[in-house]
């Protein structure tokens, strides 16, 4: 749907790598050009008209994110560089001062590097323990497994809402309840979910949520950290400087601004935030439920077609997100991706930054298709047609 809004789709291209980044609708691109060409000024600074317009636009996006996430207040929305920075802020700006040696953080082996490495580094820093909640045979996480993994020492559960290789949708609402009962901080990596289905941080009892703008029709270089107000109040900035201070003097007196500005040091990515705001308008106009239903329909269609081919192994048939991980039998995933590229089909090959998932899959690498609402069944048919003749692969790629 809505293909006419995407300049990239005018090219002869089948773009199936939306888990890596999504294409941008023209309205998002235009909104950024408009900032640079008709009201280009800094935020939170001047008393002149265009500077005030910047403030209005920039702060307006905070309200849009609040609406998208169903957050309680706008000051719970912090603009960051992306999901990676957001999770690093949670680990090193908050957990570092709240956790003690021996406390446990629960993650899984299906997490993206950005929800693994901050915790492993924090473990080195302050002696917390990182434990992996076991996945089931479909490489998915069940509520029972989470419940079983919780110990009196568990202080944090940090999970992707939707994983980026298996594409399973975690039962975040139920896990949120468990976290509330056990007084565990619930950290959610929303990089693969916020753009694909409805997220309600209040209903899911999410303490912190991280996601990136470029995976949801927005520009690169901007993301969001959501945190419950009372928790963000305790978060220590990781960067200090302009914009976030209210008073400082040579005798050492320093006072920082209130939330959210305190956690956004330096000149923010203004154009990018404005572009993100436009992307959110666009998504909400389609409807997050509709997007999810359509992607699931695409995924089921793709699986039904792929299953008819005798040379394809699928690793995540049953997951409910719009992701298909597969290999052409006997073909290294990168060779398969190069082959598909020959037909202008973009898929990702490799381990997709989930480098410990290989312990579960028993294979290192897969090809990954990740859908978005602008993909079509016709594109899937074309993929199937190309995979059908993949016996010729080495004639094409060598």
């Amino acid at each position, binding site marked *: 749907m809505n293909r006419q809004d995407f300049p990239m789709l005018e090219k002869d291209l089948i773009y199936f790598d939306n888990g890596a980044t999504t294409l941008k609708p023209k309205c998002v691109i235009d909104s950024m050009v408009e900032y640079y060409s008709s009201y280009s000024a800094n935020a939170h600074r001047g008393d002149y008209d265009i500077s005030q317009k910047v403030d209005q636009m920039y702060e307006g996006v905070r309200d849009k994110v609040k609406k998208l996430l169903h957050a309680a207040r706008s000051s719970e929305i912090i603009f960051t560089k992306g999901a990676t920075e957001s999770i690093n802020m949670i680990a090193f700006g908050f957990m570092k001062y709240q956790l003690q040696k021996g406390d446990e953080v629960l993650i899984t082996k299906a997490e993206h590097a950005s929800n693994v490495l901050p915790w492993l580094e924090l473990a080195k820093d302050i002696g917390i323990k990182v434990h992996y909640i076991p996945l089931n045979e479909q490489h998915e996480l069940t509520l029972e497994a989470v419940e079983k993994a919780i110990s009196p020492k568990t202080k944090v559960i940090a999970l992707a809402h939707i994983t980026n290789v298996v594409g399973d949708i975690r039962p975040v609402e139920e896990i949120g309840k468990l976290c509330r009962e056990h007084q565990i901080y619930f950290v959610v990596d929303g990089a693969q979910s916020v753009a694909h289905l409805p997220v309600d941080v209040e209903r899911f009892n999410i303490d912190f949520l991280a996601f990136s703008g470029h995976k949801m029709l927005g520009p690169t270089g901007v993301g969001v950290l959501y945190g419950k107000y009372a928790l963000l109040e305790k978060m220590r900035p990781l960067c200090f400087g302009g914009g976030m201070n209210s008073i400082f003097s040579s005798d050492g007196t320093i006072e920082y601004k209130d939330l959210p500005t305190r956690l956004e040091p330096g000149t923010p990515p203004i154009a990018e935030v404005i572009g993100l705001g436009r992307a959110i308008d666009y998504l909400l106009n389609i409807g997050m439920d509709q997007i999810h239903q359509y992607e699931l329909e695409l995924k089921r269609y793709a699986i039904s077609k792929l299953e008819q081919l005798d040379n394809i192994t699928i690793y995540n048939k049953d997951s409910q997100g719009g992701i298909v991980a597969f290999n052409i039998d006997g073909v*290294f*995933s*990168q*060779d398969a991706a*190069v082959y598909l590229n020959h037909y202008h089909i973009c898929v990702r*090959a*490799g*381990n997709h*930054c989930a*480098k410990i998932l290989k312990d579960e899959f028993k294979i*290192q*690498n897969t090809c990954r298709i990740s859908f978005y609402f602008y993909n079509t069944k016709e594109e899937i048919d074309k993929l199937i047609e190309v995979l059908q003749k993949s016996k010729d692969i*080495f*004639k094409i*790629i*060598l």
Partner: protein
Amino acid sequence: MDPNLRREIILEHYQHPINRGLVDDEHYEKANTHNDSCIDNIDVMMKITDGKVEDIRFDGEACAISTSATSIMIQTLIGKSVDEVKEIIENYEHMINEEDYRSDLLGELIVYNETYKQPNRKKCALLPFESIKKILAKKEEKENGI
């Protein structure tokens, strides 16, 4: 080079690479190299006796280009002196990077003389040679007592 012959040579070395599988022998020096795009991952081990390459072995998971290049590289380098190895690597890298090179030194490695046409595969073709360079550097460090 005839494209069919080129493909045949590459495929043969991809599907039946020589010297696959590492050995437990302290006379070998070992190095791992992986591709930045986090896919190809190859271990190479080399035994040098009296300044000559006596043996090279490898293991790992990699694409058709990387795997075959490793196999053809091993076939080309065994029996050569360290200086000859360096010269071959230099000329091979020049070929991959579209610079002047001596094809007479490269043997079957010339099947990659058109890899530059697929820039995203240059790294694959260069990967096994990175391991050899690492091993030679380690060896020199040891000999110089650094």
